[in-house]
């Protein structure tokens, strides 16, 4: 079964066509990497999937449901969670509070003026489980704004996981990280994919990470879908090498 189906999506900003007639299908349990040179339209493509803005034309289906016209928060409610290239967190709140807000919203408590003891305990358990998953369980009471960059990324992923998503969108999860942090976040994503069976779509520049993690790779170039296939197929694809890998190497 397919979690995500994108059909002939185009996004125009005035005269600029940022994404041109792109289609992509992501199966349940798949880890898909989207790569491409700077300005290829990767983040615009992500913004279309997550509902940051609507496409100029084309359709997006999520879990068999047409979501093309849905607002961001509605897509999140249906089970889509996302992180950003530049970490989006609640800097002046603790790690625990950051993830608790996500867990409460996902639990359907966002409009409640009160929360009873058993629901509260359930939320606390979920927050603690999630923090353990991303190895932040010893830093629950620290302010997120004061954490190291890698831990902030982990906290953002924890917030996304607390939503119990069917689809996890990660925009350059290793951006701005050193080797050690890159290794840790890569291992985390691998665990989420292999052990917890998350369906994940990620944008990534670091080819070691991409080839280590991805089941399939989609290559965008100048807003078009240039190629799609397994890591082996993409590595052997001459068009991709010419347009992208050749330049990078």
């Amino acid at each position, binding site marked *: 079964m397919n979690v995500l189906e994108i059909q002939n999506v185009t996004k125009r900003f005035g005269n600029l066509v940022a994404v041109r007639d792109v289609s992509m299908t992501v199966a349940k349990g798949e880890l898909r990497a989207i790569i491409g040179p700077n300005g290829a339209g990767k983040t615009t493509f992500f913004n279309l999937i*997550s509902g940051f803005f609507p496409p100029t034309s084309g359709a997006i289906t999520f879990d068999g449901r047409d979501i093309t016209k849905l*607002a*961001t*928060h509605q897509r*999140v*409610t249906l089970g889509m*969670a*996302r992180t*950003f290239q530049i970490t*989006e*967190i*609640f*800097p*002046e*709140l603790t790690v625990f*509070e950051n993830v*608790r*807000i*996500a867990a*409460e*919203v*996902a639990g359907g*408590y*966002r*409009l*409640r*003026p*009160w*929360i009873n003891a058993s629901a509260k305990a359930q939320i606390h358990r979920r927050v603690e489980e999630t923090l353990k998953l991303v190895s932040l369980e010893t830093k629950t009471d620290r302010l997120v704004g004061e954490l190291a960059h890698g831990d902030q990324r982990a906290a953002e992923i924890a*917030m996304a996981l607390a*939503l119990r998503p069917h689809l996890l969108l990660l925009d350059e999860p290793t951006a701005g990280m050193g080797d050690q942090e890159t290794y840790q976040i890569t291992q985390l994503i691998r665990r989420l994919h292999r052990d917890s069976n998350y369906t994940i779509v990620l944008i990534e520049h670091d080819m070691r990470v991409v080839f280590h993690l991805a089941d399939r790779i989609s290559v965008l170039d100048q807003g078009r879908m240039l190629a799609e296939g397994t890591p082996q197929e993409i590595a052997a694809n001459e068009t991709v090498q010419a347009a992208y890998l050749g330049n990078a190497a």
Partner: protein
Amino acid sequence: MSAEQTRKLIVLAAIWATLVLAPYWMVPLGGYTALATRVLVLGLAAMSVNFLLGFTGVLSFGHAAYFGLGAYGAGLTLKFLAPSTPLALVAGMLLGGVCGAILGTLIVRRRGVYFAMVTIAFGQVFYYIAFQWSSLTGGDDGLRGFSRQPIDFGLFKLDILSDANNFYFFVLFCFALVVAAMGFILRSPFGRTMIAIRENERRSRFLGIPVERHIWIAFTLSCFFMGFAGALYALVNNFADPRGLHYSQSGDFVMMAVMGGMRSFWGPLLGAAVFVVLQDYLSSITVNWMSFVGLLFVLVVLFFPRGLLGFIQRSKA
């Protein structure tokens, strides 16, 4: 954790003890009970503004409109409907809250400076209505000809008109109800979504929070609180003033909140206390009292960006 909780309880007990005993310690210090009553009412208004500013991160520069509507609602009820103080308070709160709810639907799509401008514009509409509609509102002279009524408990009546202490305790009781409601909401899952929106709107949206709807709810709640404070203010003065709706009054409330500390729950009350006491003292010396209050405001913003209470909390920690 528990040491922190004990400390918070002690601070809370100290705040309430100070408020409950105010009529007894203010008089020996050269104050008077009615001044404490004004501090409570304007403090409640500043806390209502801060419910939005400090905890949702949205600056309304027209909140005096809902304060003034509360005052006119209470005054008109006492003058034309029924001589009942509780009814006047409810009517004032409803008038402020319902108008806020309706206008809020138009306001919440704007952000930042545009949000502030739109709130000013709507606020001024009410100011000019109160100013022009003389037959109902008394126009420029304000609404007169009503006074707060004794509270009827069946067995006995509580005189809040001539006994200043009784009135103070009545206002303190009302203040406590509203402040408890605010605190309760802020500690709830909904309250945490308000803080989430303040901290990072984009992240909030991507957690599945419909941001506009939540800002609207917070705006509406704060207008209800504001209407209630305005109704109390009409009872304090036995008078409703069109200038209570004016945007300069909104500015005073924002000033109290920022001066006291907009990230702290009690900060605006402290800001209101400083503002009201300074106004009372300085205005008997000079007509230019506002320039001194303004100077203090500038100093606080420059040297204690987290406000007076923020500064006190920081130096203790």
